[in-house]
């Protein structure tokens, strides 16, 4: 037992070490390319981007944008996840509509988010579009995960519920949802970064503020450092969302299996 645990610890330490080495290598490579000017003037050294970020004015601009994007992504994530789980649950409560829902979700997902942007701007408005695109991006991932999650209870468990005379609602609440929670949370870890990406895309089309707006204006005004700082910031936001959800997943897996 302890030997196995030590081996597992050793393996995970080595994995973490390799991941850190990879990250350092990437950063170093980006720095070298920037310094040598290998990729042209639009690729600055990373150190210049970081230095740019130390200026209070840059921090203010980025901070405002991150707050807007973060809240749009967060709200979109919550809306999308709730809708995804609710739709999947509806599919188990009304089995005949299940396949139809699957197809509808696949169809909606097949429409590129880029194509939906202008449509949403004209219907839902500039301010609401980032949240809605984030919700669409997150919702599909959660719906797909939840659909298989709600079927994850073992056959024996479902038989016991059937013989005990459990109705569909009782089976959903007391068996399918808790049994499927680890898989639903797997879907959430995918949906988190997806919501950040969705929010940025939504902002691209002319939201009042946000990282997407910053990206567009920095690009058009050739503010290379700002462009890179904004891209960096949105990746950090997406990664932070992923890490928080990974923690949640770990906790759920301990509790529900």
């Amino acid at each position, binding site marked *: 037992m302890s030997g196995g645990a030590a081996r597992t610890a050793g393996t995970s330490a080595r994995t973490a070490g390799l991941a850190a080495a990879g990250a350092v290598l990437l950063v170093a490579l980006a720095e070298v390319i920037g310094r040598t000017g290998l990729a042209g003037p639009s690729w600055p050294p990373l150190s210049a981007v970081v230095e740019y970020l130390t200026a209070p004015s840059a921090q203010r601009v980025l901070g405002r944008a991150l707050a807007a994007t973060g809240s749009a992504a967060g709200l979109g994530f919550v809306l999308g996840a709730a809708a995804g789980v609710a739709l999947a649950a509806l599919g188990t409560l009304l089995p005949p509509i299940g396949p139809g829902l699957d197809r509808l979700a696949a169809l909606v997902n097949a429409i590129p988010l880029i194509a939906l942007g202008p449509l949403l701007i004209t219907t839902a408005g500039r301010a609401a579009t980032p949240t809605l695109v984030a919700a669409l991006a997150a919702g599909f991932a959660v719906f797909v995960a939840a659909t298989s999650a709600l079927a994850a209870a073992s056959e024996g468990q479902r038989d016991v519920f059937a013989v005990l005379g459990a109705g569909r609602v*009782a089976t959903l609440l007391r068996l399918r949802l808790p049994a499927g929670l680890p898989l639903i949370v797997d879907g959430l870890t995918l949906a988190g970064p997806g919501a950040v990406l969705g929010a940025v895309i939504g902002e691209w089309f002319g939201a009042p503020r946000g990282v997407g707006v910053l990206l567009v204006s920095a690009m058009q005004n050739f503010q290379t450092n700002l462009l890179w700082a904004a891209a960096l910031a949105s990746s950090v936001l997406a990664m932070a969302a992923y890490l928080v959800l990974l923690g949640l997943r770990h906790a759920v897996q301990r509790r529900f299996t």
Partner: protein
Amino acid sequence: MPERAVEPITEAITEAITEAITEAIAEAIALSGIGKEFPLRRGHAVRALDGFDLTVEHGEFVAILGPSGCGKSTVLRLVAGLEAPTEGEVRVEGRGPAELIREHRLGVAFQEHALLPWASARANVALPFKVAGRQVDRARVDALLHLVGLEGFADARPRQLSGGMRQRVAIARALALNPDVLLLDEPFGALDAVTRRRMNLELARIWMAQRITTLLVTHDVDEAVLLADRVVVMTGRPGRVRHVQRVDLPRPRGTEVTREPAFHALVDQLTGLLDEAEPAGTAA
């Protein structure tokens, strides 16, 4: 004159009706002329049961014994309402299984314990109350945990319990709502021989305390003889009743019973029948 003639007739009719009713509900479980086919690909079907008849009296413990794949689990699933027969009729307490299920009057335990891993032993035993939308009878749940010898493990989660303990929780859960009929499908099939033997004695003790109509499906002859009032031996597929053996060993049956010659004679006889049943199954 006419009055005197009518009276005995009405009396006879009333008597006949009463008799019919008593007869109808005298059996806790009645399977008559059961055939069951499972469809395979391209219109082919496998016939699991053929002309299967079985009645179980109120408060009787019947064990179904048969080679693997003989359809004995199918019999139990029919009584549990998890499968519908292709031919014949299944009556439990004089009605279809679905009606009893709706009234939460069946208890079941499978080889796979099927406990909820996120819930404590106590919460698992309380599950039938919640599923039925009833107030959880805490005293009953605690009494059941005591009955299966797990009062000290009420707050333990299934993964913290041994295999035998999990099956005890599953049996306590099956008993929670005082079911009319208890259905057990190889409940100790996944346990090691020593634990299995101990669990058999435990179940004999638990059953003596509850006296619920019980249908047990097993391939373990010792288990069947130790627990049952009657043992039904099935043929290989398609499953039919090959032999019904009454077990007249005195209750309560403890370890001493398993050392008696009568016990061993019965086990040997039934084992012989099982061995003969096997080739029929492979031939079909």
